[in-house]
C-alpha cells in the first residue's frame, strides 16, 4: 500500500471544490444567517430574533404539525406497500413480470410538476375522474381541495404513488441478494410461505428497509412541490402547509433569509434526529 496523496487529491479536487463552495460553506453560512436579522440593511446579529420568533410562530407549528403528520402516516404506508410490491414482483409464480414492473416503476421517471398537474385534474371536485368514478359507484363526491383532511390525504396519495415504486426497486434488489437456498431449506422444514416472509425475508431485508425509510423521511421532511402545486400553496388555508413550503414563502417570497434559515435548520435537526433514532432502534444486536 503506497500513499499517493498528490494523485488522489488531483482526482478529488473538482468534486471537493464543488462540495466546499456549494455545501460546506452554505451549511455554515445558513447557521450564521439564522442568527441574523435579515430584513434590515445591513444584516445585523440578533441571536434570538429568528429563533425567538420561531418558537412563538403558529405558522411554524402548523407547518411542523402537518409535516410530521404526513411523515408518520405516509412513510410507513408507502414502505409497507413497497415491500409488498417487491415481494410479489419477486415471486416465481408471476407471469408478464415486465408489465407489472413497468406499472409500479414508471412513476419513478415522472417529474413532480407533470404529476402534480395530472393529480389536480384527476381530483377536481366536479369534473375530476376520481369524483366521477366515486359518484358512479354510488358514493359521495369529495371536495379534495377545500377541506383539510381530504387535502392532506390527497398529498399523501400523490407522494405514495410517486415514490412507492422507487422504494420497491431498492427493496427488490435487496430481496434478490437473499440466497434462494435459505427458502428451500425453510420449505423442507415445512415453514409456511407467510412465516418465511416474517421470519426470513423481513429480518434479512431489514438494513435495506431502514435505508429506504431514512431516504423517505429526509425526502418527506422537505416536501414542497406537491403542496405547492397540487393543493395550491399549502391550501386550504394552510391546511397542507409543510416546513418546505414555509421555508419557501419566508425565504423567497418575503425574502426573510434569517427566519427561513432557522426553519431549514429545524428541518435538518428533525431529519437527523429521526434518522439516528431509526438507526438506533434497528441496530444490529451486538
Amino acid at each position: 500500500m503506497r500513499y499517493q496523496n498528490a494523485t488522489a487529491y488531483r482526482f478529488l479536487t473538482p468534486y471537493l471544490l464543488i462540495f466546499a463552495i456549494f455545501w460546506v460553506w452554505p451549511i455554515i453560512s445558513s447557521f450564521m444567517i439564522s442568527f441574523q436579522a435579515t430584513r434590515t440593511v445591513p444584516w445585523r446579529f440578533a441571536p434570538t430574533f429568528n429563533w425567538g420568533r420561531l418558537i412563538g410562530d403558529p405558522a411554524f407549528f402548523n407547518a411542523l404539525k402537518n409535516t410530521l403528520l404526513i411523515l408518520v402516516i405516509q412513510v410507513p404506508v408507502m414502505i409497507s406497500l413497497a415491500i409488498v410490491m417487491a415481494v410479489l414482483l419477486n415471486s416465481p409464480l408471476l407471469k408478464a413480470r415486465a408489465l407489472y414492473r413497468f406499472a409500479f416503476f414508471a412513476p419513478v421517471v415522472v417529474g413532480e410538476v407533470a404529476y402534480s398537474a395530472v393529480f389536480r385534474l384527476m381530483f377536481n371536485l366536479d369534473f375530476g375522474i376520481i369524483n366521477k368514478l366515486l359518484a358512479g359507484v354510488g358514493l359521495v363526491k369529495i371536495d379534495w381541495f377545500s377541506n383539510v383532511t381530504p387535502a392532506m390525504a390527497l398529498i399523501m396519495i400523490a407522494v405514495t404513488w410517486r415514490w412507492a415504486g422507487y422504494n420497491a426497486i431498492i427493496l427488490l434488489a435487496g430481496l434478490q441478494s437473499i440466497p434462494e437456498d435459505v427458502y428451500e431449506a425453510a420449505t423442507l422444514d415445512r415453514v409456511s410461505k407467510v412465516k418465511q416472509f416474517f421470519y426470513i425475508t423481513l429480518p434479512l431485508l431489514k438494513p435495506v428497509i431502514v435505508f429506504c425509510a431514512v431516504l423517505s423521511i429526509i425526502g418527506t421532511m422537505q416536501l414542497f412541490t406537491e403542496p405547492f402545486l397540487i393543493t395550491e400553496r399549502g391550501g386550504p388555508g394552510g391546511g397542507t402547509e409543510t416546513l418546505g413550503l414555509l421555508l419557501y414563502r419566508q425565504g423567497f417570497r418575503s425574502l426573510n433569509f434569517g427566519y427561513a434559515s432557522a426553519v431549514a435548520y429545524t428541518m435538518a435537526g428533525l431529519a437527523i434526529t429521526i434518522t439516528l433514532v431509526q438507526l438506533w432502534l434497528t441496530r444490529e444486536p451486538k
Partner: protein
Amino acid sequence: MSSLSQRRLGRSLLLHLFLTPLAVIWLFPLWMMIVFSTMPDNGIFSPGIELLPHDNFLANFHNLQRDTDFVGAIGISVSVAVTYTVLSVLLTSMAGWALARYHFVGKGFVVAIILGTITLPYAVVLIPQFIMVARDFQLANTWVALIVPPLFNSLGVLFMRQAFSMMPHDLFDAARVEGVKEWRIFLFVALPLARPMLAALAIILFLASWNNYLWPLLINSQPGAMTAPVALGTLIGLTKVSWGGLMVGAVMLTVPMLVVFVLLQRHFIAGIAAGAVK
C-alpha cells in the same frame, strides 16, 4: 393434476388477482395524462367519464405554446441536463476512482462527510446557495446557475467507488508498471470497464436534472431562462390556462423518460438500486 401443482395454480391466481388491480391503479394517472392531453378543454371539464384518447393533441400543443414558450424551455432543459450529466459523471467517477484506488491522508474523513450529507436535507444549503449564486456571483437566469451547484452528489460517488473497487486491481497495477500515467489508467482502463455503471449513473443524473424543480424555480425564474418543469409549473393554478395544453407539456416531459426507462430498464434499476447493495 397433482395437488402440488393445483396449489401452485391457486397461489398464482391469487397473486395476479391482487397485483393486477394495483397495477391498473398505478398506471391510471399516466394513462389519464395522455387522455387529457388529447382532449379539448371543454371536454376535460365536462360531466362525462372519458377514458379514451381523443384527437386534440396538436391544438392543445398550440395552446400550450401560446401560454408559455414551452419548446424553448424544453431546449434549455435538454441542454442543461446533457451538460450536467456529462460533467457530473466525470466529477463523480473521478472522485469515486480516487476513493477506490488510492490511499491518502484524509480519506476516512472524506468518506465520512460524503456519507454524512446523505442524511442532511438539501433545504439547509438552499438559502446560502441562492444568495451566493444570485447575489454574490450575479448568475441568476444563466445555465451555469442551473448546472454547477447541483453537481455535488453523494450516492453517485459511493456507487462509483464501489464499481471501481470491484475491479481487479492487478489491471491497474499492470498499467502502472508499464509506466502509464494514473489519469490515463483512469481514462483508458478503468472508465471503459465501468461502462455499465457509468450508464446507470448517467441515466439517474440525467433524470434528476430533467425533473429538478425547486432550484431552477428559484434561480431561473425569468421567462426565457426557465426550464421546462418550471415553465409548466407557472401555468398550474392560473385561472385562464389551457389544461389540455398543460397536459401536453406533462406528456412531453414524461413520455421521453418512459421510453428511456423501457429501453434502458436494466441500467435504470441498477442506478436506483445501487444505494441498497453495499
